[in-house]
């Protein structure tokens, strides 16, 4: 197969599984090492630069990094990347002096930012220090978007939100809270240099089955109900509650209901428990709070008496594969099941809605009534109008909203400078040897076999009493250190120089994971099977290098390398070196200007 081009930034970036999987490409191992060193503020700033909301995300992120984490392929569980981020936020010093200052000179450009969710706030954060005048509009009085209105306070306290939204608004941004934009056309008429739409996906799906109208008083749309709880308008619910739906919203609904008087709260899902959209840890938290999850039940009707809800009737189904191999739910034929209850929370999905965007202003919408948005530039079909977050491609999560925000900010900056927004900046990369002595590295290369440390939770009795009491207590510094040590430092790369190699096999013999093979080159599929251990994980690259005297090639399977550096310690000639690969995404500003 082809020799590996380690000069291409993507090659080593992919080896850092967590960073590659993070939509904002946060340099995870770099901040984890800083946490291990007790340098919480430094760790926080790395996060703040990349993902804008370390304290918020450290509590709520969907963590696409964790399923990707190499540690999870070496033992049972990945590193607790997300909760370590929270440690940086919890134990940092006052970092305000390290934040960018409001621009001393404005550049005269005005940007309208609609919605004050994470996508919009990221756009404003990236642009304001460059001198842009950003006006952020939100129909709500306070910034944060769904982070404030949807995510329950027991997962994300207001203090954390206020702090991190405050850092952004403190950059000289004009925030117009309580102002809803009812016409984009009108706004465009106000002469902004660019507009960013970060209005989210605000509409909860309803469930139109018999009884819906008659029992309406006790049937609530999940996200509307959650925001009403957040605003303090709702503070009670019936004793027996049925939550319909298997996503994260359903998990927040049931756990919130449990705190507002719901003693008997059930979650009921159509499909199997395993197929539920909710993250495994959210399901676990719900189960731990005494909320059972019933599966393979399709809601058929809301039952009611005298205009009052009495329960929900379900048809029992099972999953089957149809002729084309697609999974289908078919009725089992068993009698329907009835769950009596006082209230129902419907959490079966979320939709976009853009009633305030006119369809004759050059912004194309597709057949699903979604704006047509370029996934690289985030620009709509009308130059100068950009979308991001849930408004762009439907409901996702905070970290995706942030990633969109960064890309949109780059586009807006280029757009305002008259540059081609399709030309995207390269990331900044640096590769630095970690060698300090014969057996000494500037990172801790000893591998711990410790298993993942659970995050301490508040006593359930207390937690269930108040919807505003945070459940998770977070790691303390000693737990954080122990958990941080589980990180394999995947950014410290094994870099091979064939011309130095004498083919002594020392690296092959010492490698605990059988990653390294010296062999004849071949086609990739075949080569993968004749390595010291079969390289069956095709999502992980093979590192192939030549320049060996014997004419063979060195093949390293990146899959389960522990980055322990033993190969480099054992190599008599320095043909292996451990080099730290630091990749930082380029954000809006001089570094992304074509003429820079």
């Amino acid at each position, binding site marked *: 197969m082809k020799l590996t081009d380690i000069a291409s930034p993507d090659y080593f970036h992919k080896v850092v599984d967590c960073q590659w999987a993070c939509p904002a490409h946060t340099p995870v191992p770099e901040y984890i090492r800083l946490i291990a060193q007790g340098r919480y503020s430094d760790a926080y700033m790395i996060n703040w630069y990349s993902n804008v909301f370390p304290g918020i995300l450290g509590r709520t992120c969907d963590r696409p990094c964790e399923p990707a984490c190499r540690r999870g392929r070496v*033992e049972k569980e990945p590193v607790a990347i997300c909760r370590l981020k929270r440690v940086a936020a919890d134990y940092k010093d006052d970092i305000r002096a390290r934040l960018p200052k409001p621009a001393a000179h404005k550049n005269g450009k005005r940007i309208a930012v609609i919605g004050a969710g994470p996508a919009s706030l990221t756009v404003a954060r990236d642009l304001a220090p460059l001198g842009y005048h950003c006006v952020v509009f939100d129909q709500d009085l306070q910034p944060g978007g769904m982070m404030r209105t949807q995510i329950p306070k027991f997962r994300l306290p207001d203090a954390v939100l206020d702090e991190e939204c405050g850092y952004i608004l403190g950059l000289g941004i004009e925030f117009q809270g309580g102002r809803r934009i009812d016409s984009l056309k009108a706004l465009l008429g106000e002469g902004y240099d660019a507009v960013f739409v970060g209005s989210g996906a605000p509409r909860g799906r309803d469930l139109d089955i018999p009884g819906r109208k008659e029992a309406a008083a006790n049937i609530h749309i999940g996200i509307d109900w959650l925001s009403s709880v957040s605003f303090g308008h709702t503070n009670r619910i019936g004793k027996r509650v049925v939550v319909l739906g298997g996503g994260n919203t359903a998990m927040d609904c049931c756990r919130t209901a449990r705190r507002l008087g719901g003693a008997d709260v059930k979650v009921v899902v159509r499909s199997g428990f395993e197929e539920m959209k909710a993250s495994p840890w959210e399901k676990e938290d719900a189960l731990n709070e005494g909320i059972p999850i019933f599966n393979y039940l399709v809601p058929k009707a809301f039952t009611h008496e005298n205009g009052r809800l009495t329960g929900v009737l379900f048809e029992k189904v099972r999953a089957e594969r149809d002729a084309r191999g697609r999974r289908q739910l078919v009725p089992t034929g068993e009698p329907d099941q009835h769950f009596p209850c006082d209230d129902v929370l419907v959490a079966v999905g979320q939709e976009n809605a853009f009633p305030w965007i006119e369809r004759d202003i050059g912004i194309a919408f597709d057949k699903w009534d979604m704006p047509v948005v370029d996934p690289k530039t985030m620009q709509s079909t009308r130059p100068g109008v950009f979308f991001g977050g849930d408004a762009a491609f439907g409901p996702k999560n905070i970290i995706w909203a942030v990633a969109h925000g960064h890309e949109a900010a780059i586009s807006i900056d280029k757009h305002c400078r008259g540059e081609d927004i399709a030309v995207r900046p390269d990331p900044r990369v640096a590769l630095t040897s970690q060698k300090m002595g014969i057996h000494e590295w500037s990172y801790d290369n*000893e591998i711990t076999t410790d298993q993942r440390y659970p995050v301490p939770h508040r006593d359930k009795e207390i937690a269930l009493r108040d919807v505003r009491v945070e459940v998770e207590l977070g790691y303390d510094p000693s737990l954080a250190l122990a958990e941080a040590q589980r990180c394999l430092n995947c950014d410290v790369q094994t870099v091979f120089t064939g011309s130095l190699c004498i083919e*002594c*096999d*020392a690296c092959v013999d*010492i490698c605990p994971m*059988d990653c390294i093979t010296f062999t004849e080159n071949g086609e990739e599929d075949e080569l993968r099977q004749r390595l010291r251990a079969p390289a069956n994980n095709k999502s992980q690259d093979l590192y192939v290098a030549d320049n060996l005297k014997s004419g063979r090639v060195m093949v390293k399977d990146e899959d*389960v390398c522990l980055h*322990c550096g033993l190969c480099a*310690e054992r190599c008599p000639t320095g043909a292996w070196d451990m080099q730290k690969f630091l990749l930082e995404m380029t954000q809006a500003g001089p570094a992304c200007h074509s003429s820079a």
Partner: protein
Amino acid sequence: MTYLAKPKFHHPALPKNALGYTHRDYEGSVSTLCAGCGHDSITGAIIQACFELAIEPHKVAKISGIGCSSKTPTYFLGNSHGFNSVHGRMPSVLTGANLANRDLIYLGVSGDGDSASIGFGQFAHAIRRGVNMVYIVENNGVYGLTKGQFSATADRGSKAKRGAVNNDSPIDMVAIALQLGATFVARSFSGDKPQLVPLIKAAIEHKGAAFIDVISPCVAFNNHAGSTKSFDYVREHNRAVNRLDFITGREPIAVDYAPGELEIVEQHDGSRLALRKLAADYDPHDRIAAMNYLAQRTALGEIVTGLLYVDRDPEDLHEHLNTVDTPLNALTEKDLCPGAAALERFNAGLR
């Protein structure tokens, strides 16, 4: 060397042998030799061979003398028996252990200093007595542990690291082993595991004195230009007479070599050696021819490697001495003191 223990984690898809072990289960503690030492590769080859043969580690005794090479048994088979004897005395300790308990597999690990200098006589006698063992010499041409003096296997004219030239005649341990009647004689190179691992496996299964000379570059003191035991020199002058596959069991052998190129050698215990010929007319069953071939090729400056000689019908010391089958530690008092009548019969036999 490294100061860290090798992490316990292993590749999730590592193959397991018949005992359910992975090759990692055959490791010892982490090596303290210089990074890149050929001896460590031989350690790797022994681990691989024992793993592939699914040997129970407690059925192995590792016995060695003194030297970097003799330290290596610590680095493999951490669950086996071991004895680190004084310099050059591995063969007699091994012989004694073998006589006391013939049920174990004896792995004698030595160096060229340990076996060709101080222990030369010991080496000779263990071989000529036909002790059932695998005798591995990790041959680097120097006394590595004492900082690189020429050993008795250093070639005449080869240069030490500081430039001194060796004027003494070398001892070719393979030639001596052939002459002394070893029933399995091979030479290999630490940098060629595909050749070395099957040779070690075949030697372990061989019921007699099996000798393997493994050229093993000393990266610290004997891997420079002018050395004849360096990685480069050995790779350039290596002349392999054959390639060996070791096969246990009786399954049909599917190998796609042209007729005549492959020879299947049935061993006494039913296991078989599949020998792929590289030197067309080389016959590994003809001891005299082997000695001739070796002498001729050595004179041409070549390093002959491969399975050089194997006796299809070896004998061992126990047969020669007609010793009891049972290990001595398992003999009961009744076996050892058979009573006055037996003594009477015995004495009568001597009258």
